[in-house]
């Protein structure tokens, strides 16, 4: 009986050791702390217009909440990092498929991301988009 108790004790210790808590990463803290204000949106290097006009709806405030929800201009939706925290995957109810954005710069004051977006009027056409945000 004593051996059984010892064995159970060791086993539980193994389990508890395995369940270590993870710390919040620096990039996660930088992204989720401020409310970001869009400074510029460039489609292939110029301001969005014509078929790309819908991207202007991303202008305004953006907030990445810690629980994975957020708002991005007039869009609401969900976001997540990839595990390497080099990309932000944004899913909104407005854009039909997730947008994987590459983080070019993330500091306490600046967020610069880029992605490729399909032209909703002509899915054969796509454009490179760069968005710059400043912390409020």
């Amino acid at each position, binding site marked *: 009986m004593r051996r059984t108790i010892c064995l159970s004790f060791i086993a539980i210790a*193994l389990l508890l050791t*395995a369940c270590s808590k993870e710390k919040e990463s620096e990039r996660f803290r930088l992204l989720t702390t401020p409310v970001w204000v869009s400074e510029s949106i460039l489609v292939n290097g110029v301001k969005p217009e014509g078929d790309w006009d819908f991207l202007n709806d991303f202008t305004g405030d953006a907030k990445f909440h810690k629980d994975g929800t957020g708002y991005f201009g007039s869009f609401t939706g969900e976001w*997540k990092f990839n595990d390497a925290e080099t990309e932000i995957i944004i899913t909104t109810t407005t854009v039909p498929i997730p947008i994987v954005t590459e983080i070019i710069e993330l500091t306490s004051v600046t967020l610069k991301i880029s992605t490729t977006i399909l032209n909703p009027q002509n899915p054969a056409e796509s454009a490179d988009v760069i968005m710059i945000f400043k912390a409020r």
Partner: protein
Amino acid sequence: MIRHFLTVILCILCCCSLASGAEGNIKGRVIDSEHGEPLAGVYVIYGSNRGTTTNDSGYYFIADVSGRVRVVFQFVGYATVTRDVTVRADETVELDISLETLVSEIDQVVVSANRTEQKVAELSVSMSVIKNSFLSDNHISDARELIGKNPGIDVMDGQASVRGGSGFSYGAGSRVLALIDGLPFNSADAGNIKWQFLPLENLSRIEVIKGASSVLYGSSALNGIINFRSADASNTPVTKFHTEAGIFGRPRNREWKWWNTPRFFTNTSLSHLQKFGKTDIGMSAYFMTDEGYRRLNGENLGRISLRLKHFSTKVEGLNYGLNISAGSTHKTDFVLWENARTGALRQSEATAAEFRGNFITIDPFISLRKNERTRHDLKIRFRSDRNRLPRNEKNNSDAVNLYSEYQLWCRITDFLDITSGLTENYSLVNSEFFGDHHGLNLAGFSQVEIRPVNRLKAVAGLRLEHFSLDGVSDRLTPILRAGINFQAAEYTYLRASFGQGYRYPSIAEKYASTTLGSVKIIPNPGILAEKGWSTELGVKQAFLLGKTAGQADLSFFLMQNSNLIEFLFASYHGEGVGFRADNLEQARIYGSEFEFAFETRLNRVNISSTGGYAYTFPRDISNRYSDKIVFLKYRRKHSVKLYVNSSWKSFTLGSGLNIRSKILNIDNVFLEPLTRELFLPGFYEYWNRNNRGHAVLDVSAGYIISPRLNLSFVVKNFTNTEYMGRPGDIQPHRNFSIRLSGNL
């Protein structure tokens, strides 16, 4: 004083010497009672814990004993035999022994868990053992189908998942490592398991470890391993064959039937095992034609194997040999259905991927066992794969793989064993699909097993692994495992274990770049290795109740993995829209599993049954700030598997029941309004209506024509249940097969 003392000592020694000269000896040979083979390394214990072991020919010799002597013969996997003999002075008593193998499930000897022979009950990890007879009883000739019938394991479109550790990975990568006689079988390019090439002929058993096993087996063993163990030749030559023919019935949804002539499948196999003096020979061949129940989804397959093993007559304990396997397949993979209403069993020419694949493995090996305390093993595997897609030649690929491992096992003391080894795995891939790449994987491992007190075993192991791809090195990965097993009562074993695992991304996940129909695959060279750990508590209980003997196993497990790779359909920077592999999931899976096996006799009916129930709670914890529970994709919570076989006189009857609960989560691409119709027309409505879990019943009946010939009939999916694996992958409806098998 000193002189007197020395005189007394001298007198005692003289007396002992005289007494010794008046003693006798015991000698004999120990053989296997079933095959008559000599058993080497049997412990022969006599007197007050004195002992010896049998040599390679099974002989032993005990010198200088007299009077009534109790001799105990012990060997792993065999019932212990005790004999009392009376030895007179100057007499040599001959005592030959036949040891009987233990039929009890818990006494089965396995090798996969610790890379050395050990009773399955004494392991610190969960292991399921699938016996060879399960294949013929259930008309199984495909390893994928076989593994999927094991409790706690699901196979979704070729992706094996142990206790919910994996989902559906679009054919790239595997978190479960397949082994043949301990050598890895996952392909070098896609990192997946080519199930159709796994030989099921001449197998002795299949061992499945549930949980991270990377310390002993390296990358890809993140979620577990499946080891296909070949049978050894015995003194009695064994020739087996089977030939089977089958036909698919009508699907439950009559509108799905697209054929006008019946859809047939046939397969046949021949295998032979024989011992020629000191040389064992095994050979097998298997051929299969399956017209398929789905349009543009047939397959023709052939595989052969040759196994040679020679026991040296000059060097005691030395054996060496060569295994060769080869296979060829010509098939059309089913990717996407045409529509849910009438075309679920049809795919269009645009997505049909005709595939011609060949492979060959050449595995030389040498083993040296000395004094039952040391064993050296050197194994090498050369593997070549050739994949051709005639309709899309830019997706062709060739892969060459050279794997080698050296392992040293030492029994340092009676309570301490050490197993250490070095492995090397070089891969070369040439392909327009993946690009040209070469990888090198180097690793060293060591594991200590101690038995500090009676009934307690503890293991601890460490592995260091280095991986480089195209000359670019990844960081050195250290991983650990530890476990204990305690025999709490005669037939009760408690166990606890912890093991780390990892998996380097396959070349396909990193570099695949192509278009399949309307689907674009985008490469991602930056993805990281998956890593994680698993831990469990378990108890194994054997029982003997009247004429019923069996075992039950209950385990509670927890595993956590990070950097899990999944394919996400999205808009990517610089690449456009398509699927790309990325490190997106962090998984925490806990649950419990119950397994049982028993045999009984009711009047004159022999009944055997195996089965189990697995519960998993597979949660994606990548967002730890959200209270919302997000389930991992392509996992289920509940699964029940139950198999019963019975025999009466020359008749056999069997059934298999497989119950699974609904799939908890799938990729958004199949749910979002814009994309779901693009890939799988009608899927969304079908999914909402039918993702409720399923129960599939198989039944079988057989007649033993003669001791060497057997005829059997199986109906798979007897209930004609309509169910789906991954999205768009409708599983086989009711089908009938008849098999003639023999043992010459």
